Structure formats: structure tokens, C-alpha cells
């Protein structure tokens, strides 16, 4: 059977450096840091007191109060970014076959804030169970996909995807596969995450995963800098409208790019530490190239997982060097997490959007916060430090890796009829 071609025809973004696609892209090109002191709870006793929160975000600007109250913050952001993507793509229940429009939507953790609130409330009582009837439907991770379908009436395939910080790349991959197999015409895919709470920050702090640079939050996310000390937690959501090519052409849709291929592998090594030689990361890029029928030489930009952790950054760069060979010194590499922070389950789609925009506009967003070269990294590699670089971007690759040893990779390329 002939696989169908898959294109991206709509984008929605709600990120710590911009509350829509245009603001997000401007933030990336201008090297804006989304980090600042935490406002969502009193973090004064926490090892890390900053994060990349959404700015000037009021869910009531998008959702009515009754609706907003019954859904966790991660679902609020999921609904908002998917609304933007639907509008951008120009689709609605009257101009598509709703039975062939699906939603495959990720989160790394789901409604942790809701879980925390309910359990804290119970613990404060006398043991009488007084759980809110919306506790479970607010918390469960798949509910974002459910709400998006209810909002738009899309009745095609509908589920959530979870692989920790690789979740939304896996979601894009599942959406891509459903469409190229002919199971749907359009899928809204992406991910959302919002766990900047006591449990979220405290939990990651306990693992020593977060930067503790409280004296200078804006420079804390510094992938590939010698003095990086952990990731900066971000939050937000991104949605892609992915569509079967002929369907998109027939309705005269605006086409951002083509999804060329995807890959998924496991490290089978450790719950949180990457394989020291970047084995799973290397394999996932090889699988994605095979899937896309492309070679490393076809790629001009690699958006890395690059979380600003001491071990993770090194392992991934080793993998890139192994897979790309000499071409590793010709591609632009950058970690946009230096600006957005690490949006966990939403990171994959938020970074895929950076890749798509790079392919559309022929500009590579930078890795900001570079102060000191890391002697463990080959100086010939171009990490696009500090300033965006203009170059033709024929195709871009985005890596994401999750706790559990999950690796996922997506390659996007310029659309050519």
C-alpha cells in the first residue's frame, strides 16, 4: 500500500516566551528568556524558585468561567493552543468530514496540580472523603484530547500519548502514521504541560534535575555552557494540524511544511540518566532518517533536546556527531529550551514548531545564555549561540527524550509539490 504524504496546515502555540505563534517566533528570533521567579505558588522554601511560566495568561480570556473551573491548567492550555491551530488551518465541523478528523494529544504528567489540590484538601480533613466529582476528569491525562474533540465536534481517532518529555513528539508521530495509513484526513496533535506547583517543582528538585541558579534565573537555562546545572521547568502547549496532502490541496489549505519521517526508540538503560554514549538518541535519529528516506546531509537544522543538564547535553551531542559524521559541523544545532525552558510533555511540539518555522523562514533560532565553552564539546560544532542565523533550511530534525529512556525524533522538510 502506498503511504500518503502528510503536511502541516495549522499551528497554535502558547509558550513562556509568546502567547501565540507569532509572539513565540519573535521571542525565539530575539533570544528572549522566559525564565523568572515563580508566581503560581510560594516557592521561598524550594531549592529552585524560578521557572518559565506563561506570561499574562488569563484562561478567562479564552474560556468561560464555568468551563475553565472544571479543567486543569494543562487542559486549559491544550484547548487554547488547539483553538488557535484550528482557526489557523481554516477548518471547522462544516467544511471537513468530522468522522475523519482526530485528536492525538500528549502530556507528560497530566493534571498534577489538580491531584495535589485534592489530596492536600483531603489530608487537611478528618479522614472523611470529600473529593470533588471533577477531580478524576480534571486530572486524567487523556482528558485534553477529549475536550478538544468535544469543542470542535471532531469524531475521528482520539487518545493521549505519554512518554514523559518525549510525549508530544510521540503524539506527532502517531498522528503522522494515522494519516499516512489513510485512517484520518486531519489530526490535531501536540501536547500540553503545566506542573509548576509544589509537587512538580519539589519532585524534580528532589531528583536534582532542576537548575538552582536562583540569583540569575534568566541565564539558568544554558545548554552546552560549561556551567549548566540542570533544566528550567517550563509550561505551555502547542498544537499542529497535520493533514493528508491531497486533502489539504483540495481545500486550498496553507501548507507550512511536510512531515518527512519519525522515529522512536528506547535506551533500555536507566530511569532518568541518558545512555552515556547516547545510544538510544543515536538510534532514534537513524530510524527517523530511514523512515524519511533521507540522509543526515539533507538536514540543515537540528533542534536538540538539550535540556541544560550536565550529562544529557553531552550524550545527545555524541549521538549527533556519530550519526552526522562530517556533516555535524555543517548543520546548525540549537536548543530553544535556553529560551522556553523545558516544557516537559509539551516540549516536543513546541520545538517541532521552532523547526517548522525555521524551514518556512530560513532562519535558525539560537541557543542563548552561552558564557563559557565546554571543553567536552567539539568546538567545530555550530550551536547557534546567542543570535539567530539565516541560512537555507531544507529540512530540520527535532529530538526529544523522556524519563524512562524514551527517545522520539521528527523530521520536517520544505513542502514541494
Amino acid at each position: 500500500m502506498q503511504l500518503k504524504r502528510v503536511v502541516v496546515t495549522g499551528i497554535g502555540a502558547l509558550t513562556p516566551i509568546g502567547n501565540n505563534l507569532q509572539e513565540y517566533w519573535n521571542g525565539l528570533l530575539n533570544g528572549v528568556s522566559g525564565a523568572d521567579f515563580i508566581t503560581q505558588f510560594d516557592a521561598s522554601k524550594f531549592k529552585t524558585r524560578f521557572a518559565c511560566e506563561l506570561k499574562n495568561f488569563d484562561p478567562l480570556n479564552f474560556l468561560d468561567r464555568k468551563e475553565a473551573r472544571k479543567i486543569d491548567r494543562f487542559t486549559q492550555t491544550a484547548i487554547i493552543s488547539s483553538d488557535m491551530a484550528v482557526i489557523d488551518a481554516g477548518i471547522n465541523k462544516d467544511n471537513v468530514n468530522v468522522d475523519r478528523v482526530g485528536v492525538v494529544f500528549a502530556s507528560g504528567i497530566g493534571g498534577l496540580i489538580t491531584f495535589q489540590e485534592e489530596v492536600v484538601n483531603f489530608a487537611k480533613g478528618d479522614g472523611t472523603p470529600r473529593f470533588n466529582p471533577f477531580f478524576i476528569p480534571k486530572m486524567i491525562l487523556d482528558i485534553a484530547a477529549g475536550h478538544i474533540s468535544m469543542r470542535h465536534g471532531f469524531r475521528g481517532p482520539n487518545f493521549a500519548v505519554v512518554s514523559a518529555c518525549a510525549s508530544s513528539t510521540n503524539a506527532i508521530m502517531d498522528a503522522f502514521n494515522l494519516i499516512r495509513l489513510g485512517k484520518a484526513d486531519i489530526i490535531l496533535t501536540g501536547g500540553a504541560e503545566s506542573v509548576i506547583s509544589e509537587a512538580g517543582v519539589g519532585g524534580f528538585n528532589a531528583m536534582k534535575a532542576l537548575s538552582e541558579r536562583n540569583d540569575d534565573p534568566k541565564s539558568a537555562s544554558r545548554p552546552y555552557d560549561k556551567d549548566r546545572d540542570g533544566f528550567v521547568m517550563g509550561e505551555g502547549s502547542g498544537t499542529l494540524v497535520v493533514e493528508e496532502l491531497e486533502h489539504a490541496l483540495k481545500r486550498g489549505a496553507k501548507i507550512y511544511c511536510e512531515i518527512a519521517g519519525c522515529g522512536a526508540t528506547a535506551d533500555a538503560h536507566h530511569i532518568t540518566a541518558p545512555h552515556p554514549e547516547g545510544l538510544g538518541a543515536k538510534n532514534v535519529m537513524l530510524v527517523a532518517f530511514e523512515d524519511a528516506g533521507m540522509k543526515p546531509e539533507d538536514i540543515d537544522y537540528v533542534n536538540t533536546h538539550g535540556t541544560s543538564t550536565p550529562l544529557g547535553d553531552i550524550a545527545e551531542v555524541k549521538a549527533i556527531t556519530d550519526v552526522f559524521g562530517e556533516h555535524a559541523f555543517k548543520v546548525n544545532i540549537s536548543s530553544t529550551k535556553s529560551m522556553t525552558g523545558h516544557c516537559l510533555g509539551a516540549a516536543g511540539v513546541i520545538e517541532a514548531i521552532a523547526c517548522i518555522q525555521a524551514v518556512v523562514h530560513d532562519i535558525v533560532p539560537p541557543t542563548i545564555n552561552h558564557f563559557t565553552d565546554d571543553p567536552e564539546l567539539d568546538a567545530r560544532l555550530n550551536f547557534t549561540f546567542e543570535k539567530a542565523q539565516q541560512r537555507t533550511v531544507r529540512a530540520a530534525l527535532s529530538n526529544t527524550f523522556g524519563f524512562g529512556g524514551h527517545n522520539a525524533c521528527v523530521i520536517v522538510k520544505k513542502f514541494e509539490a
Partner: protein
Amino acid sequence: MSDIATRVKKIIVDKLGVEEAEVTNEASFTNDLGADSLDTVELIMEFEKEFNISIPDEQAETITTVGQAVAYLEEHAKV
């Protein structure tokens, strides 16, 4: 309007996102005020919290209108 009625109506306006004028004594939570089954469970919980009582499930099921809620609470509320 009694103090209890005022407080009951405030909770309903808040939880169901309806206008105060809609919250008449005759108004049914599900038929008139747009509540679903989970909303009504949440309303009962809020009444329990506000009035510091416990409403048994079999009695909670008989409270389907604003007036019934006010009458029940006027009889049973401890504060």
C-alpha cells in the same frame, strides 16, 4: 430572603456560572441551570462545606431545585 437562601444562591451562581436572576426557587439544577450529574454532586458538597453538615446520599438525591436545597438547609444547617 433568608441568610441561608442568600448563601445557597451565591454558591449556585458561582459553581454553575449562571446569572443571579435565573436562580429562582423553582429552578431545577439540571433542567433550568445547565448542571450535569457531576455539577449536582459538586453543589451538594459545597452546601455541606458551607453549612458544616453531612447530607446523606439518599437525601441528596431528592434535592433537585434551588427551593428544595434552601428548605433542606434551613432545616438541617448547624450555622
